């Protein structure tokens, strides 16, 4: 498991500056290299290493779920001893992209993302049927603050 202490200075700079605003030029890694005063190859190696270490899952877009399709936050209340079993049933749906246990009577929380509203409704219905539990369906109504990358504290 990677740890913050193992992250070198170049990786820190790249993580601090390029969670958003990745260059949209023909040679993005060269642009980053120029900005950070290193070589293009060093930047490419560094980004590859961060991906290898599973610190960076990908370089690319985070889509606005509302505009790109339909999505919702859903929750189920499951007896604790059934939690893993039910979580696995939920995970089998390719439309589920986040799935967490949380400390509440509603203890299983997952995000469902689909191409359109109809597909989303169908998926929720199928999850309900497969798990046997009613689903709390909490679609986003308004975003006050969206995830624009994460401020990392290296100290």
């Amino acid at each position, binding site marked *: 498991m*990677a*740890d913050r202490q193992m992250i070198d200075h170049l990786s820190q700079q790249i*993580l601090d500056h390029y*969670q*958003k*605003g*990745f260059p*949209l030029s*023909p040679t*993005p890694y*060269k642009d980053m290299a120029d900005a950070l005063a290193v070589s*293009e190859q060093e930047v490419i190696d560094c*980004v590859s290493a961060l991906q290898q270490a*599973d*610190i*960076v*899952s*990908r*370089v*690319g*877009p*985070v*889509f*606005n779920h509302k*505009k*790109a399709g339909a999505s919702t*936050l859903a929750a189920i209340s499951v007896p*604790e001893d059934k*939690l893993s079993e039910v*979580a*696995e049933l939920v*995970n089998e749906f*390719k*439309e*589920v*992209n*986040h*799935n*967490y*246990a*949380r*400390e*509440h009577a*509603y203890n299983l*929380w*997952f995000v469902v*993302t*689909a191409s359109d509203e109809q597909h989303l409704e169908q998926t929720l219905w199928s999850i309900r049927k497969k798990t046997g539990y009613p689903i*709390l369906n*909490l*679609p986003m*109504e*308004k*975003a*006050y*603050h*969206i*995830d624009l*990358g*994460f401020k990392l504290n290296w100290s």
Partner: protein
Amino acid sequence: MVNTDTQYSNSLNDLQQQALKCAIQEGLPVDPRPYQVLANLIGSTEEAVIQCIEQWIDSGLIKRFGLVVKHHNLGYHANAMVVWNIPDNMVDEVGERIKQSGLVTLCYRRPRRMPDWNYNLFCMIHGKDRDQVLSQLDQLIAECDLTMVERNVLFSYKQFKQCGGRFHQQHPTQPTAPIELSTLNTVEHQNSTQKVARHG
């Protein structure tokens, strides 16, 4: 018959746009010319690919474009979803205030579902451990004048799945082993008033 004018024009047709969305949602190729690689893949030009992504960012279809970080693997082991019951006529104002605080990763309004769920405002707080998240929450409550507001704090304690949303399904998602999130933090936090989930 292939229309070369279209093929090499600087705007992508619908099929090419769909193909580009599919390709980039899995991540850019790690290559000195990633947009050229994508252009080759969908039969277009590097310039058209860049322009198309720029348009998606301008229109808000893409929220951000860059490195997607796995917080947990950088030592950010704690995350709490904090939910609030705000009077409907004040929720916009409070949402804006919470945003301005800079203490949360995201802040959304969602519907109440009575009688089971009485919360209409959601925010996420990330931290290295539980104590750090709770101290950020205290700061948020003080700064945004939320002392009297009914709230609930839902720490996560196990991650069963985390991947980018896929609007254009091409590959089945790989099953992954669940990640225990709070093995360290539960021990550190026995004196907290927060209920600590125990498991495993």
